[in-house]
């Protein structure tokens, strides 16, 4: 089933603030604790039981063969239903009804597939803890489409053979419109199992009033002038990867010796009292209130904090930044995989990507969405038009190719490497 591109459907125009989701901060990208960790405890208990007797689970050695693709999709047909698991505030909403998602309505109208959309993912680790027992038992997890950040969990999902190999003959719109930054990514060669939902940059956020100067370099996070006022991420992906980038080392190909060098630098920063705290995703409040002046940060968070009144700046250090991508993927035993595949292609239409970008504030995988947004702006006047024009020219939503060239990916690690990596970096933020 190919989805028709329907140029006749106008974009629903909302109140500009609501339109872009600016009144709410997107909650909970990763790790934390705050709420997720607690539920993670329960999920953990279930997974302990499931983990018992996991043996020889490895199924996948990377890539998918044409055979595997045709075998998987043979005989599978559209069911008219899609169960979609995603993150909070990661989908456009109608101005008058938060539970109505115009882009999903459009999808249903075009394809006849009803979408059961659930914002159940608060952090990758505990979500994986929840679904892992069913995946390991070769059962459906109740969702046909997941949004999972590239990184260690996605690597495991692929390595364990938990994801369906994608049939790219059914993804022509993706092939036509996807940004080069999300095509054939290092974590999923040839997009064998995933296509991008949205991406974001990890760089530095700061309060220019308090730092007293513009921030340009990764080294600024190590400036003794900011002693006790620096926030770093307490995670095993962004913290090490940005450190490697900051030291001029390509993280994708870094060696264990490089890891140790980066760890030594971070350890010194901690022991010199420069770091106040290793944050998980709760750094925006302390940054807005002045508990910290400068912090590692995600682009979209700073954008949204400013929209709700803060006066912060986001910068990608001159040494480079880290780019991460949240990816759509289909669990191998999904009940309605064809419907999920249809949706994956649907969101790569520039008009649809524009609807999403106008709300989400992260990097859209469809550069053509910029034209679509400008076309919408041309139909409007006043503040609405200005807001859309600003959005279309915002480098955090449509980064330049020079910016993207400086953005690095997490290293893909096998099980043994991951163990060593964790033993080097975790003691820094879990001292």
């Amino acid at each position, binding site marked *: 089933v190919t989805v028709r591109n329907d140029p006749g459907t106008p974009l629903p125009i909302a109140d500009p603030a609501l339109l872009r989701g600016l009144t709410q901060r997107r909650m909970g990208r990763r790790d934390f604790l*705050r709420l997720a960790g607690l539920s993670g405890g329960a999920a953990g208990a279930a997974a302990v039981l499931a983990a018992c007797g996991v043996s020889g689970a*490895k199924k996948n050695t990377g890539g998918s063969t044409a055979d595997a693709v045709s075998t998987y999709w043979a005989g599978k047909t559209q069911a008219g239903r899609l169960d979609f698991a995603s993150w909070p505030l990661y989908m456009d909403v109608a101005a008058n009804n938060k539970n109505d998602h115009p882009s999903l309505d459009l999808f249903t109208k075009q394809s006849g597939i009803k979408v059961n959309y659930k914002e159940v993912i608060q952090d990758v680790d505990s979500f994986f803890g929840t679904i892992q027992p069913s995946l390991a038992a070769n059962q459906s997890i109740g969702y046909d489409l997941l949004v999972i950040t590239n990184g260690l969990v996605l690597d495991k999902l692929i390595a364990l053979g938990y994801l369906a190999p994608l049939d790219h003959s059914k993804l022509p719109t993706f092939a036509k419109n996807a940004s080069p930054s999300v095509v054939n990514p290092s974590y999923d060669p040839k997009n064998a199992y995933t296509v991008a939902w949205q991406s974001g940059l990890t760089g530095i956020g700061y309060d220019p009033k308090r730092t007293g100067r513009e921030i340009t370099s990764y080294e600024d996070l190590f400036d003794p002038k900011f002693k006790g006022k620096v926030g770093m991420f307490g995670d095993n992906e962004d913290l090490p990867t940005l450190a490697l980038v900051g030291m001029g080392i390509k993280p994708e190909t870094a060696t264990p010796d490089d890891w140790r060098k980066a760890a030594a630098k971070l350890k010194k920063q901690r022991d010199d009292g420069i770091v106040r*705290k290793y944050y998980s995703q709760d750094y925006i409040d302390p940054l807005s209130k002045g508990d910290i002046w400068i912090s590692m940060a995600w682009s979209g968070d700073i954008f949204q904090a400013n929209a709700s009144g803060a006066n912060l700046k986001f910068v990608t250090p001159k040494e480079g930044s880290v780019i991460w991508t949240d990816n759509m993927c289909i669990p191998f035993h999904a009940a309605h995989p064809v419907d999920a595949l249809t949706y994956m292609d649907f969101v790569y239409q520039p008009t649809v990507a524009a609807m999403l970008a106008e709300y989400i504030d992260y990097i859209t995988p469809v550069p053509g969405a910029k034209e679509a947004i400008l076309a919408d702006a041309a139909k409007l006047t006043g503040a609405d038009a200005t807001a859309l024009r600003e959005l279309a020219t915002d480098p955090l939503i449509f980064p330049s190719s020079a910016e993207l060239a400086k953005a690095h990916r997490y290293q893909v690690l096998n099980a043994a490497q991951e163990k060593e990596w964790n033993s080097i970096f975790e003691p820094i933020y879990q001292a």
Partner: protein
Amino acid sequence: MGPSNLRRLKAAATPYFLILPGGLWLVIFFVVPMVVMLSISLQTGDLVNGFSQTFHFVSYWDALKTYHVQFLRSLEYGAAATIAGLVMAYPMAYWIAFHGGTRKSTYLFLILLPFFVSFVIRTVSWQFILADNGILFSHLKDWGLLPRDFHVLATSFAVVAGLTYNFLPFMVLPVYVALERVDPRLLEAATDLYANRRDVFVRVVLPLSLPGVFAGVLLTFVPATSDYVTASILGGTKTTMIGNIIQTTYLTNNDYPTAATLSFVLMAILLLGVFSYAKALGTEDVLEVAGA
């Protein structure tokens, strides 16, 4: 079999039927997971290549060696929170028990009231109160009572304070129950026998309240030591507790054997502590409180 035999049999079986639901519950949700966890703790491998039962006892030693700092810190924080809790809870419980009058239950309810809100939300709200330029410190700093750089968040003090706050009712309630049961006639008798107020307290009230203190200490120390929420919300760079390590090992690293090993070591340390404490204070008193 005559009817009387049958009746006797029924009577003999009744207690077993009565403990059946609770017993089953314990077996399914406590004994089975414990055995499974023990088995996991002695496995080696990783999630992608699978885990196998290797009876790798060395991992216990490795876990202690790698994380002894966090183990010790958790015990210190737990002990500090318990002592601070006791110092605050005892006068509170004393006042409610002896001077609370007809409003005793209202006061107890007030102590419990904040605990109708989720643990996490309560801890996060301390973040707001204690923020460097938050409602509390911004004024004190403006008035020059505190140096500009002063901060409480992201220190071990904040973690211990958070733990103390979060587990305070677990100390107040048992101490209150013990004090409430003190027969007022004993106090009168002591006064009649020329004991001054200090003696009445030290020689009559305090010994009689010890079972409550004992229970309160256990109920505070065990959960405070294994807590991980408070440290991650209120703590700083070197305030990681063993609960945080277990969480990361489990959810982030998917290293189930190490997580299980750490949990067992923590449990063993706590049990050892509890037993030696019970030995020192006498187990009879514990049963008495449990029956109260």
